[in-house]
């Protein structure tokens, strides 16, 4: 049903319905904002690029293809959009700027919730352990457990097949579990 709503929101947007666009904006802005911050690490760049991105989507609505689920399209195009902006800003400093190498998500200690009744997790710096993982694993973890996306959606965003998403997530969680020996990771 969620998907159904997605489909009709998208259709109405293509017909120029500003109400539908506001529904879309309200449901995806927070997630894209967080994603943008993780990639750019710069609030002004994130917010300016989001304004331009949504304006771009609205103005080109008639040329958009039909979608059943909106999330992969928005995450993918926004990532590309943001990286283009960053590339422009960085043009003089950096020559090697491929998408695959650039997205390096960092987690902060405040973003992680653990049982606060004992010292155990305070000694082990979980965010540090997470940040040591390979970039692709971190992005998969972020999209799955932070943005709440499904593996099929993540595979579209990261441009890998479904099985690779599952494997990547599995690998990441396995190596974390070895470090901190817990049974349950990410609810």
């Amino acid at each position, binding site marked *: *049903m*969620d998907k*159904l*709503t997605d489909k*009709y*929101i998208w*259709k*109405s947007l293509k017909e120029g*319905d*500003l*109400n*539908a666009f*506001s*529904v879309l*904006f*309200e449901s995806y*802005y*927070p*997630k894209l*904002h*967080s994603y943008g911050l993780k990639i750019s690490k710069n609030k002004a760049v994130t*917010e300016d690029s*989001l*304004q331009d991105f*949504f*304006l771009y989507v*609205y*103005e080109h609505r008639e040329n958009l293809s039909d979608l059943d689920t909106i999330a992969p399209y928005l995450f993918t195009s926004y990532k590309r959009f943001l990286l283009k902006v960053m590339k422009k800003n960085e043009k003089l400093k950096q020559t090697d700027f491929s998408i695959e190498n650039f997205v390096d998500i960092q987690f902060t200690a*405040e*973003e*992680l*919730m*653990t*049982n606060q*009744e*004992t010292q*155990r*997790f305070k000694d082990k710096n*979980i965010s540090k352990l997470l940040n040591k993982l390979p970039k692709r694993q971190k992005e998969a973890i972020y999209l799955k*457990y*932070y943005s709440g996306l499904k593996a099929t959606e993540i595979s579209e965003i990261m441009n890998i097949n479904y099985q690779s998403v599952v494997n990547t997530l599995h690998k990441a969680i396995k190596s974390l579990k070895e470090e*901190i*020996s*817990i*049974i*349950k*990771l*990410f*609810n």
Partner: protein
Amino acid sequence: MIKKKYNNINDFLEDASFKNWALQENGTDINFWEFWVAKNPEKKELVNKAKDLVLGISFDKQFISKDKVAFEWSKLEAKIQTKKTKPKRKLRFLKQFSVAASILLLVSIGFYFTNNNSKITHKTNYGEILNIKLQDGSDVTLNSNSSLSYYKNESRKIWLSGEAFFEVDKKTVTNAKFWVVTDDLSVEVYGTSFNVNTKKKKTDVFLEEGNIWLKLKNGTDKKMIPGNYISYSSDKNEILEDINVFNANLKTSWKNGSLLFENLSLEKAMEKIEESYGYSIIFEDEISKNTLITGAVPITNINICIKAIEKSVDVIINKKDNNLIISKK
């Protein structure tokens, strides 16, 4: 199970009922372990350690606030509006502007006449949701076709007709109460969030957080705890419903612009649509009435709403004058 010894951490971890307790998943196990922990204080540290391992880690998702999103949307909307140069659009913009201007004029006349202790009223149309910040800092979301009023010098006493969700700021210094008054009852509050709905000649109250007292018209008091949902009619002098709702979203999702249905009959679901949009509902056959529907539909866009329902329960909905006519596909 009771005779078993728990001496090291693995004894706990291998115990299924311990896991159930840590995850709060099974009533009997929860009761057993609460009792066990109380009786064995010397094992407390070990129990906590084992609990850590079971609970693990999760993300505290730090998304930006709704206010910020609304602000960013208004920025974007302004950009979209200025880019539109068609005269038709301009006219619509002017019309909105003139409505706003006349409301402003009315409000200022109101202020002029009654000045200090004037009554302030907020009203919504069908398909419209309004966010209001009261003087004391409390937030109110007013659902469609509803009205809310209060006196300027007494903003913690609210009269409500229709539906609203309240997030009341606690006044720790003065401990001042907050009141919501309807035709059937009044709600007495210190600081909490709850939903009140007076549509259909009764008042429904759903408590999300904190605790509140209901003072029913017939003189009785009733205390509510989080999750309680009470429906009372003073006409009938009767409590119609007194239940616990586990999924708070079912009662409060409207404030985020959507109605949530969970295995609800289409007839009941359409009653909700009727309340939100003001259309009369006509069923052309009896079978469709009892079809169950699960999912979310928007509250401020009737066209998307109709399409979503049509697609999910295999009916055709025709919008004609002020009616929604439902027939089988």
